[in-house]
């Protein structure tokens, strides 16, 4: 009897710990080898056969197709530079320059990877579409209300993900953070709806 109870206890712990940690790893997007540039996180290894098992599992579960490393690199973030969650009811300013690439795109998604409905059908900008300052820097205002300049509408959703993708770029597995890869800063302002 003691043996049976012990065995059941053991199996319950195994199932709880095992499945619970797997679920946690997948929902928290736990994967290794992130290239962190400011708030932006990229996983250049995910576009190669060297992808780690956690990223593979998460990608299979979400149904994504990772950007291949000969194509480009994707960076994403759900927080600003101070770690505050991006809120679609507030103004978020994305400002700065980007590492060298033939093209880049910046796109706004719901956390599950859908585009966000808005009256302009504007879901993001390409590097060609952005209005830049004389210095070459650009400023994008991610906001629920109309803004002049580069306005990226949020549709007022509470949380979202920004994705910055570089195509035909030297950025990759060997990139180190710093001057080599200047990424735009992200700042959540208190200007909320």
């Amino acid at each position, binding site marked *: 009897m003691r043996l049976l109870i012990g065995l059941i206890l053991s199996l319950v712990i195994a*199932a709880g710990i*095992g499945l619970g940690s797997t679920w946690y790893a997948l929902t928290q997007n736990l994967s290794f080898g992130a290239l962190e540039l400011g708030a932006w996180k990229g996983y250049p290894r995910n576009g190669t056969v060297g992808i780690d098992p956690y990223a593979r599992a998460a990608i299979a579960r979400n149904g994504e197709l990772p*950007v291949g490393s000969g194509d480009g690199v994707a960076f994403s973030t759900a927080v600003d530079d101070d770690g505050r969650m991006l809120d679609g009811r507030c103004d978020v300013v994305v400002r700065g320059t980007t590492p060298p690439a033939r093209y880049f795109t910046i796109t706004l998604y719901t956390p599950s990877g859908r585009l966000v409905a808005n009256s302009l059908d504007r879901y993001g900008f390409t590097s060609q579409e952005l209005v830049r300052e004389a210095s070459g820097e650009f400023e994008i205002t991610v906001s629920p209300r109309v803004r002049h300049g580069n306005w990226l509408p949020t549709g007022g959703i509470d949380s979202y993900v920004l994705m910055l993708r570089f195509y035909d770029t030297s950025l990759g597995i060997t990139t180190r953070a710093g001057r080599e890869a200047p990424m735009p800063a992200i700042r959540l302002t208190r200007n909320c709806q």
Partner: protein
Amino acid sequence: MIRWLLWIMGGLMLGGLVHLTTILALPRTASRDAYARLAPLVPVHGFVLLPAPTPEASSVPFMDPAFAVAACRYDLAKGPIKLTVPVSQAYTSVTFYTRYDVAYYAINDRAAGRRSIELDLMTTKQRDDLPDDEEVTAADRLIVESPSLTGLIVARAFAPEPSLLPAATAALRAAQCKPQ
């Protein structure tokens, strides 16, 4: 008391094993991975344009709306595949995925040069079986080795602004992937 601690320890270790097993098995058991999502839309050995992502629907999550995208499923069981993707005005890339969504090779128009991206896709064994002279004549052709028999080829053509999307889409209409 010691006996219970041993059972708990055993449970924790078994839990670690369950964790590793489920993480490693998940890519092969996921029923809604990208390949499974695209399989009903995309034929074997033929490119199909994927519908542009909208807020309501997207073939796979996190699709880049600035790109026209075409996909082709392949099966190398009967022999190698010949791939031709015309290069669009701005930027074109082709990415190869295994059946389980690992991006094992990607090439863009600059790396490929010319007016179209042309290459042969085959397994390592099929490459080894190529007659030597053929290998020589094929020297200027790019050969890509697939680690799996089946998989997915995704061609993407960039539209720097929305008005150029029809042109990018038109370029991908002529893309081909078929047995040699």
